[in-house]
């Protein structure tokens, strides 16, 4: 049987591609969106706003005690001083890991995440396994990331149920006293700023 009508949106695309193309077409025809604005948004989160921003914040906190204190006292302002502001980073808090305290960030209700410093969240952060278990069995979740904590290490889970957004400042790796901020930033992973990883050791 041949398809007698010629919907260009549903005969050769997978269902979600077709569905989103249809939506974008309608909205563009109605003048409610401009495809170039979508391009600019995608470019922002693919190339400009991502975990490299958060890594600058953490590296500066490691290198500069005054900045670290500012970050504790007013994270939104301290982070803004490095040029990182805006959507899903309007109200920031920085939480510091220590030898006896490990911080882990989740949003059990949706996918709240500090976009201004980490970019868009990874799939696992938005998915039911992480959102359901991070608050109940965080040690088990961390094992799945290859992170093993001693049972005596306190775990603090931050459930982002409002508009505060949390950035974990991981512990500074040993042997990094001589590194400058650029070199320090290279050790800071995305997961270490969510709490599902550690900063990279010096190789």
């Amino acid at each position, binding site marked *: 049987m041949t398809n007698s009508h010629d*919907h260009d*949106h549903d005969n050769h695309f*997978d269902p*979600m*591609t*077709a*569905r*989103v*193309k249809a*939506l974008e*077409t*309608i*909205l563009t*025809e*109605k*003048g*409610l*969106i401009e495809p*170039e*604005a*979508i391009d*600019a*948004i*995608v470019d*922002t*989160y693919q190339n400009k706003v991502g975990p490299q921003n958060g890594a600058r914040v953490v590296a500066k906190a490691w290198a500069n005690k005054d900045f670290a204190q500012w970050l504790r006292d007013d994270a939104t302002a301290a982070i803004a001083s490095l040029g990182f*502001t*805006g*959507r899903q*980073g*309007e*109200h920031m808090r920085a939480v510091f890991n220590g030898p006896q305290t490990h911080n882990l960030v989740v949003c059990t*209700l*949706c*996918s709240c995440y500090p976009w*201004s410093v980490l970019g*868009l969240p990874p*799939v*696992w952060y938005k998915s*039911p*396994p*992480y959102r*359901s*278990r991070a*608050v*109940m*069995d965080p*040690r088990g979740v961390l094992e*799945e990331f290859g992170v093993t904590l001693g*049972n005596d*290490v*306190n*775990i*603090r889970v*931050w*459930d*982002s*149920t*409002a*508009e505060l957004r949390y950035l974990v400042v991981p512990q500074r790796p040993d042997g990094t006293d001589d590194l400058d901020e650029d070199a320090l930033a290279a050790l800071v992973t995305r997961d270490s700023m969510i709490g599902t990883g550690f900063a990279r050791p010096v190789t």
Partner: protein
Amino acid sequence: MNGPHDLGGRMGFGPVLPEADEPVFHAEWEKRALGATLCCGALGLWNIDESRHARECLHPADYYSSSYYEIWTKALEVLLVRHGCVTGEELETGHAKRPSTIDRPALKAQAVPETLARGGPCDRPASEPVQFAVGDRVRVRNLNPQGHTRIPCYAKGKVGAVEEVAGVYVFPDDNAHGRGENPQWLYRVVLTGRELWGEDGDPNLTVSIDAWESYLERA
């Protein structure tokens, strides 16, 4: 609402599966879905609380079988129809059937950097005295509204301590439903693993939630 989105403490979803070197997007349509959602949001016809509520109102079977950008796309369609931007027929055919009656300018590409950098702060000046102080013992009220709320089910009825009085913020339970911003004091409340999960709870676990004042009562 006690919807499918409220996942804290639920079981049966299996292990977390981190993806090594995960790309920002997994398909072209995800880029367009994200961008369309943000562009439509910039029209100012609805707020972030209404969009969150549209997502959590998906049928649980649909919610759990959809990827996150699928959830966003389905909720965006609901919002666009609700606010008169598109019709079901248009979504069905993939083309506009009539001109837009929405008198709002589309977000321009040149305005994107400034718009994203500005964000949407939702703190507001205080107009009511603060009720709780750091260190106060508070119980998360057992509220079960039909509409939007940001009380996670796992914390209801549980007692914790106020760790931070975080300021005054737009109240999502009202804002999601067009009842105004009605800002309230927001508190970070810390609860122990034992309080939340009983005697099998991790003795070295604490969990914090951020709770608006009307979610809490003195314990």
